[in-house]
């Protein structure tokens, strides 16, 4: 049984003005990262703020999951690929790992970050608990369907 306890969370639906709030948290509007990644950043930073943290310990694990992930970017890149190569930024946006890199940069986190395709938040949490070190875990589920969801949990060791 895990000894991780939840110390921060972002589980409510994104606010109507979530993009403005994200820009406020970042100090600028994010550029060319795609809506899915923006939504993920918004929730993760809110969760970390709820825990009172700005950075993630290097021995934590960052586990991200989604059902549809980068599907909008993937469709756009596939459209571009019909007649020409995709734009470099468009192709990069098809890779869910780009959000891991964004989060690692923002949270000053040179650590273990992983994307679980098609997993639920509970499945991601279970796998994070199996891998978490002393720094605990940051676990998120981000999807842009049905108005969008960005649910995050910050979990720390209870001792």
């Amino acid at each position, binding site marked *: 049984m895990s000894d991780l306890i939840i110390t921060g969370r972002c589980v409510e639906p994104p606010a109507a003005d979530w993009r403005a709030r994200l820009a406020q948290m970042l100090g600028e509007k994010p550029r060319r990262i795609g809506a899915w990644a923006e939504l993920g950043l918004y929730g993760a930073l809110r969760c970390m703020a709820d825990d009172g943290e700005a950075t993630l310990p290097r021995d934590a694990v960052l586990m991200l999951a989604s059902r549809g992930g980068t599907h909008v970017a*993937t469709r756009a890149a596939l459209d571009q690929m019909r007649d020409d190569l995709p734009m470099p930024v468009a*192709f990069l946006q098809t890779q869910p790992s780009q959000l*891991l*890199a964004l989060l690692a940069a923002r949270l000053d986190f040179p650590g*273990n970050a992983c994307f*679980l395709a098609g997993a639920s938040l509970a*499945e991601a949490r279970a796998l994070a608990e*199996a891998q978490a070190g002393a720094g605990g875990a940051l676990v998120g589920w981000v999807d842009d369907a049905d108005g969008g969801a960005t649910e995050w949990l910050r979990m720390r060791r209870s001792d």
Partner: protein
Amino acid sequence: MNAAPIVGRGLACALGLDAAECVATLRAGGRPAGSRRLPGGLGGEFPYFAIPFEGRDWYERARALATRVAAEAGAQPRCRGALFVATSSFDVGAVEAGVKGAAVGDYRRFVDAVAGWLDWAGPVYAVSTACTSSLNALIAAQAVLRAGSVDEALVLGIELENRLTMGGFAALQLLSRTGSKPFGAHRDGLVLGESVAAIRLAAHGDSAWRLLGGANVVDGANPTGASESALNAMFARTLAASGLGADQIDLVKVQAAGSPGNDLAEARALRAAFEPVPPLVSLKATIGHTMGASGAAEIALLTACLENGAWPVAADAVDPELGVALAVKPPAVRRLLATILGFGGSHAAVALERT
């Protein structure tokens, strides 16, 4: 540290449809890369390592390869262990080809299809961290085994041909037009390939190889390139997770995909982590860079090579400015590191021990 016995492996790549055929083909001099044409001003002809296997359509080919490779690894139907599907491109090739039922927007559809092909009864995860996917799947699988919730795990790397991935790499100007030259003096980019590979782990039991541990370090500073500081951390954490010192490593399977910048960063990090640098081997000139499946594919091929005395031949003279060399014959190996670098700043490595 709980080492996980590697109780099975399976491999389909440009060299052949199972590990034995791959070793035999490699021993006979390998198989030259084919080529693929891409549209646009940055397009043209690029070398590509395809699996020599035809299928009725994309899914039928993927199903045949996945079931074949999983069976080679010893996976049984109705297995209640954990299945880790590792891929960066999923079934986008089927979407491109307009195969019935193929669609973007729900990863689970493809993951469930793979589990169905294998008649898998246990939990299923899909790890997608670009090119490090199957190494990260191995690291996660070892953790799940250590936690005790399952007593077996199958990591199945699947990376099959699609135009989007190749086009994306070409758009980023990361592809070679001439060939794969790991650490080469004339290296000018990556050559991509496809593979389906399986590594089967168990909680207990006898095996020729054991997975000792691994580490993944994501560095957000550069979305497409390797970071020397992240590589340093990756080596240090992999050794720590495996209970090893640097002087206990007999061989490093490097990424060395032929990228001018990444190969340089990797060579520098090797020199910083090891004194002296152990023998090195790269398999990229033999099977190409098979992205999310590359970790599993290269471990399957490397362990088979070491067991059979086969060895890849470097395609180009090593760049003397890198200060490293590739081994020209198989060294005596008790413990090795296997490294893969990927998009999204992911740097992953695992340590294996021969029992």
